[in-house]
């Protein structure tokens, strides 16, 4: 259940160009969050909260890690928040990835840019349960790359950059041929990337995490709807998602 919680900033550091890793302490959220869920963060002077995915959880230390890119006024302000400060957060938000190991031996994670963070907590959860994890991560260029080592610890990891300044040049789809056999795939990233992937991996079972501008973040305002192939015709990203079966939604 989503709650309004106060989270203390334990650390904050820029780990790649414009990309900040922040660790937040809170027992309720660290105990209940599953991979793919998000925090809805209030920043003073802003009327709308900012949704940021949960990138990792340390249940023992009651820590939740988020990774975000400084893109606009909200994320820039968040980057300025110092250790010790308290954040007003709604969380954990939405429905995350279903971690289901039955009959699976290998899962494929595909993350693009700031879609990489939620993949990490998911991969870690699978790896801890003995599933092979293969990751394909795409970034703009070398200076934007983050968490390469962390993903390598989970399993085989391929990095691509748009400009070829690190790893393979191109888009994540260009690297998919290098990946061996896998059961399900999981992906988060920019819409064009998700379109290309769901297209290319049509035959596979996959789950994708989507983004949309949000009002309430809890399912009340109908700001974040997405057309679906189901009878009802739409889903709310904030409360039905952000994770959807790739075959269920219309991108």
């Amino acid at each position, binding site marked *: 259940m989503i709650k309004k919680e106060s989270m203390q900033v334990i650390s904050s550091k820029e780990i790649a160009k414009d990309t900040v890793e922040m660790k937040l302490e809170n027992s309720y959220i660290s105990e209940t969050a599953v991979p793919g869920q998000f925090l809805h963060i*209030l920043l003073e002077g802003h009327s709308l909260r900012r949704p940021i995915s949960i990138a990792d959880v340390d249940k023992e230390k009651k820590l939740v890690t988020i990774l975000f890119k400084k893109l606009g006024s*909200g994320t820039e302000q968040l980057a300025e928040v110092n250790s010790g400060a308290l954040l007003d957060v709604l969380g954990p938000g939405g429905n995350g990835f279903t971690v289901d190991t039955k009959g699976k031996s290998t899962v494929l994670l595909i993350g693009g840019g700031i879609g990489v963070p939620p993949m990490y907590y998911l991969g870690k959860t699978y790896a801890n349960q003995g599933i092979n994890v293969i990751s394909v991560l795409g970034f703009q260029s070398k200076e934007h790359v983050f968490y390469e080592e962390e993903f390598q610890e989970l399993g085989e990891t391929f990095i691509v950059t748009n400009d070829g300044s690190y790893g393979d040049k191109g888009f994540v789809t260009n690297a998919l041929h290098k990946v061996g056999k896998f059961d399900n795939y999981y992906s988060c990233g920019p819409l064009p990337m998700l379109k290309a992937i769901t297209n290319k991996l049509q035959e596979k079972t996959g789950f994708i995490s989507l983004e949309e501008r949000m009002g309430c973040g809890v399912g009340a*305002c*109908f700001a974040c709807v997405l057309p679906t192939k189901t009878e009802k015709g739409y889903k709310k990203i904030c409360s039905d998602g952000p994770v959807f079966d790739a075959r269920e939604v219309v991108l």
Partner: protein
Amino acid sequence: MIDLKVQLPGLNLKNPIMPASGCFGFGREYSQFYDLSKLGAIIMKAATGRERFGNPTPRVAETSSGMLNAIGLQNPGVEKIIENEVPFLANYDTSIIANVAGSTIEEYELVAGTFNATKDVHALELNISCPNVKEGGIQFGTNPSMAAKVTEKVKKASNLPVYVKLSPNVSDIVGMAKAVESAGADGLSMINTLTGMQIHLPTKQPLIANKTGGLSGPAIKPIAVRMIYEVKQHVSIPIIGMGGITSAEDVLEFLLAGASAVAVGTANFTNPLICSEIIDALPATLEKYGFTSVEDAIGKVVI
């Protein structure tokens, strides 16, 4: 003891605080955060004759001390609302107000008439002012004779008290208020959003897919207070006030201007507990400024 009760046509409110239409869905989501029985009333999301899917996304954008929205009246249609949503809200000890929308007078009549048949809805809020519906909603909201006509028809279609929700996008708010009062409105609800636009520089496109959206939040509060004050001088039906309320002090400001109760919209997004917190703070705020009851403060601005 500070008395928070307010008596309005069809509404026996334990306090004057209610979430505004469209900013609270049908209550379910916020029932996770606090007990909805605490609320004076709940105004449901707009209902139309049939299910509506609304506008393309993005549908919301942030502005200085406010936001734009162009949801486009997405809702499951009046029948599904009565079937699935009203029974849930009826579990709570609070009044239920249905927000009635449509593209034609016939649709307004249909929706109002359908709500009339349910015992759990206590009043109607006639949404003639949603700026995001292109087919005609906007005309009802800015033309006094159209507004009067739809009010009259809806009054005939239903026995429920009707609060007409006024649009602030008009030259003469008093004229609009008088027109719907003469047409039989039991109360007014004001203000809806002001039409606005924001352009995203990287794409050069409007940030809202619908191009324009409705501006709400603290940015519009002075406009709401002014319109309520002006209307109060010229009509005798009660006013449910709204527009940028975020605190018990704001509530008192609206009461002084002439509102008998208030609705809180955008602030629910910033803080899902806001209505509950305002209700808790209201007695002390009234007391601080020398009032012993809500009724006491209504219209008491000193000119």
